[in-house]
């Protein structure tokens, strides 16, 4: 177990190093001098040089990279070119919003996905199974930002039930969470159904039924518990995706989250902000996946000893 964790940790360190390197190389080949852009055309050579020096942009690229990594290790990504705000402060502030959105979407996806998947498995082949599986196919195939706009039109504008933008109160959270969670609810429903059907075929389920255990208990206690491992595996990685892939929903609902920060950074060519956001988002993703993997190694011994290390 310990060796598995150590191996996984070493891999993570390497991956994080690679991510900072790729991000740095990518963003430093962007055409256009950021300092000249920031200062506009009015600035003379001397001013540009002065600002370059202040920002540490007058040293060779490898040195800039080392300084960037040194800063990143201390979670210091410098200051935004535009707002002059400390990038880390902006990241923390925006990330809090995104976490709220992701957690709500996650709960929505789990509750709806598990329920629909279980109902579909129990009523396999009946109309309700076909209906739920069609809906889940629509859920995974429709773009989330489009679902978001439909929700705005139908629930926000036509029925006038919920606000369609902003993120100030609990009522504001509902539509974005549904929009972000739908796709994941669909895939959870599909894997729950498959996994439940695998388990329901097993002998111990027949035994439980023949003993006269109530059908509801058979499903909840015997079947669901054993069908959980593939479901939990999927759910864990999906949390990572929700935490890092919310920029589309944030754009539709004008939510000031981490995705909006990334998009803003790109639109303004604000390199420190962008570099910080990309590395931060990747860091969150990698750490969530690390935690998920290690916890599976606890749950499922096959991962610890078997091919799971690959």
């Amino acid at each position, binding site marked *: 177990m310990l060796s598995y964790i150590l191996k996984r940790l070493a*891999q993570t360190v*390497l*991956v994080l190093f*690679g*991510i900072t390197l*790729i*991000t740095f190389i*990518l*963003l430093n*080949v*962007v055409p256009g001098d950021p300092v000249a852009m920031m200062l506009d055309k009015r600035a003379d050579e001397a001013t540009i040089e002065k600002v370059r020096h202040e920002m540490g942009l007058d040293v060779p690229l490898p040195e800039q990279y080392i300084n960037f990594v040194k800063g990143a290790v201390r979670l210091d990504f410098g200051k935004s070119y535009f707002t002059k705000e400390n990038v880390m402060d902006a990241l923390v502030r925006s990330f809090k919003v995104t976490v709220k959105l992701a957690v709500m979407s996650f709960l929505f996806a789990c509750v709806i996905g598990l329920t629909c998947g279980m109902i579909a498995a129990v009523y396999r082949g009946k109309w309700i199974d076909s209906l739920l599986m069609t809906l889940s*196919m*629509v859920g*995974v*195939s*429709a*773009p989330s*930002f*489009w679902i978001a*706009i*439909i929700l*705005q*039109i139908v629930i926000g*504008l036509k029925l006038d039930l919920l606000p369609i933008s902003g993120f100030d109160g609990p009522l504001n959270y509902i539509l974005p969470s549904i929009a972000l969670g739908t796709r994941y609810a669909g*895939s959870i429903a*599909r*894997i729950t159904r*498959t996994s439940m*059907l*695998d388990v329901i075929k097993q002998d111990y389920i027949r035994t439980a039924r023949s003993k006269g255990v109530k059908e509801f208990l058979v499903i909840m206690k015997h079947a669901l518990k054993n069908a959980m491992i*593939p479901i939990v595996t*999927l759910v864990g990685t999906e949390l*990572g*995706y929700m935490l*890092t*892939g919310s*920029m*589309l929903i944030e*754009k*539709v609902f004008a939510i000031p989250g981490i995705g909006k920060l*990334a*998009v803003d950074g*790109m*639109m303004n060519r604000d390199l420190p902000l*962008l570099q910080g*956001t*990309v590395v931060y*988002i*990747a860091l969150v*993703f*990698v750490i969530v*996946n690390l935690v998920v993997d290690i916890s599976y190694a606890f749950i499922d011994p096959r991962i610890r000893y078997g*091919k799971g290390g*690959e």
Partner: protein
Amino acid sequence: MFNKQKKFEQAVLSGEYANDDIEYSSYYKDSFKRLKKNKMAMVCAIIIVILVIIAVFAPVLAPYDPDVQDYANILKAPSKAHLLGTDEYGRDILSRIIYGTRVSLSVGLLAQALATLIGVTLGALAAYYGGWVDTVISRITEIFAAFPDLIFAMGIMFVIGPGIKNIFIALGLLTWVRTARMIRGQILQLKEKEYVEAAKASGATAFHTITKHLIPNCISTVIVLVTLGIPNAIMYEASLSFLGLGIQPPTASWGSMISSAQPFISYLPTYSIFPGIAIMITVIAFNIFGDGLRDALDPKMKN
């Protein structure tokens, strides 16, 4: 979709999917027979063919020029003259959706072509040579896989600039990882087969062994990966264009149409709804057909 790909991946890596000992002509004939029995997959195949026809014959099929502006007819609701209405420049929405089919399908196909090229090459090299080659390629694969997908695609688009060619490149760079992993897994198993040893013993070069003996035996895996990869690429393109980092105006793309429709949702809601339906139909058709294809190419995979 995601789960099925994962399951498929596991099956390939565990060797269930190696079909090297089946005679070729009858293997594909049998697969095709199985595929024909799958009604849903066949319906989706027909939808895909129709989409391709729409894309190819867009100039003939579109009732209007997609880029011609008509300020007398701005943001009109669907009518006989404009079946799906007009946009904020008076352009015909139906014609723009028809032309958007070209963008989506070509992005899907070319991005997958690039991903397959990179993925198969790196996967095959890693598996064939093993040792430090495998270590280096596998570590690179890990780093690419660890990047959250959308922010990675956004970053590349930011660097190389918007435009359709750059979308091919960004999505190709994003999606080769899965192909590389699966091809590596499959070739690791194929490498141990007698006919590969025989080829090596009779003096075949590494290039010959890889291109004539190993890769041809991975073709069915590649076909399934490409079919299931196309809808993913289409979805990424729509997302990037929606964020303003993909296809640039005035070119019609489904994602950018939804983006420009967003300010008008209360005035003309249908404007934002129709392009989304086009995305959904295309993605569903490729997903169901891809699933059917996978089940047909390997009946053992069927759950």
